[in-house]
């Protein structure tokens, strides 16, 4: 806990992130360069042909989309239980990226689905649960924007995020019970050909680094915005 609260002070966070940001940007660019190079140079799949390369954009987007929700849920617990002062800002800043990654996962999935399944959209379990995740992100962001009092908005959004965190596994289970066409996961179970594994893992790292970079920038922007506002109020 001690470790987390050392960076609770916005000034402390600004100092630290100022130093970390160039490193994050460099690491993101490097990971994308390596990941895209590997992804474009692996041999085409014997069944899917070149369409398999879409996977390197699709699967990391989906992983990032769920990771962002996890980050929001952790921030919400920190905010509700320990009143960690930065975590509300962090949770709010993360939500648009979650929605973006979810949308990206849906769009790349549709583009891959056309040649593979013969249709852009099927009401398959994973697609449907990701569509629902997108709506959950929309609802979360809408609640933040709707409540004017920032303290109240933060607490309400945190409660909603935790309700969602309990519910998302149930939604996922129920949708899977309802219909399954999407192939099961193939990384842990070892069904993925080893040549495809390296670019996939690098791209996953690249997406997560991209999220970390943009997230840091957005938190910094929010802190600066708040400072500017209080300065203007002081001047008026």
């Amino acid at each position, binding site marked *: 806990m001690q470790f987390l609260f050392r960076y609770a002070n916005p000034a402390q966070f600004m100092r630290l992130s100022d130093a970390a940001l160039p490193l994050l940007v460099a690491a993101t660019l490097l990971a994308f360069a390596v990941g895209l190079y590997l992804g474009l140079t692996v041999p085409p799949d014997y069944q899917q042909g070149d369409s398999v390369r879409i996977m390197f954009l699709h699967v990391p987007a989906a992983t990032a989309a769920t990771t962002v929700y996890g980050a929001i849920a952790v921030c919400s617990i920190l905010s509700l239980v320990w009143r960690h002062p930065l975590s509300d800002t962090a949770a709010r800043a993360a939500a648009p990226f979650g929605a973006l990654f979810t949308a990206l996962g849906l769009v790349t999935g549709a583009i891959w689905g056309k040649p593979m399944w013969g249709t852009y959209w099927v009401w398959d379990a994973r697609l449907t649960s990701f569509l*629902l995740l997108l*709506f*959950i992100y*929309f*609802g979360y962001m*809408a*609640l933040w924007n*709707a*409540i004017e*009092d920032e303290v*109240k908005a933060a*607490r*309400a959004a945190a*409660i*909603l995020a*935790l*309700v*969602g965190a*309990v*519910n998302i596994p*149930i*939604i996922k*289970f*129920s*949708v899977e*019970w*309802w219909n399954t066409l999407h192939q099961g996961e193939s990384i842990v179970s070892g069904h993925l050909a080893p040549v495809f594994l390296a670019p996939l893992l690098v791209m996953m790292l690249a997406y997560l680094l991209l999220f970390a970079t943009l997230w840091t920038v957005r938190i910094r922007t929010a802190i600066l915005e708040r400072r500017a506002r209080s300065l203007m109020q002081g001047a008026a």
Partner: protein
Amino acid sequence: MSGPFVTLLLRDLKLAARGGGSAALALSFFALVATLVPLGVGADLNLLARVAGGVLWVGAVLAALLSLDRLFQGDFEDGSLELIALSPLPLELAALAKILAHWLATGLALTLLSPLLALMFNLPGNAMRMLFVSLLVGTPAVSAVGAIGASLTLSLKRGGLILPLIILPLLVPAVIFGAGAVGAVLDGIAGGGALGLLAAFSGASVLLSPFAAAACVRLNLSS
């Protein structure tokens, strides 16, 4: 403890019955949605029997949503919510009483109306019974999860618009298992599995959501 709980429950039921008749409105809305569907998809009785479970489940969820935004809002605006919060009754139990009152006034009423609409959708008898039971078991989840949304948006003037966006994704399991149980019976399989999952979802929602709703009410009262 049961004294104030029952008092609050009866008060909310009286308000639902006398104050604008939200139960009657929800029932009319439910019947109207059920009337629009054949006009949209055609009057083929086989097709209607096929979609009846899903259509009536979706219609019931939407109808129950209509009166949800007023679950705490009226009491919040006239100050009685603060009195309820100050009373010896824990706020969690007060939330449970309100959820129960909302379910009795809408969920149960919708369930009782459903066999009539199912008849008009040409649903066979055994599937109709399953629809009735699944609504009976599943609509408490709608009131319970809805109470979380209602308490989150209770200080908002336009809370009615944001409420469905927040809670409809959370109600997906109820619709899937409820309509799934009816579909299973239509396919000649026992729908007991889906019904069991629906009951589990419903029970967990009713047990857990009063805590979330009470937390949101407290946060909106503290200012």
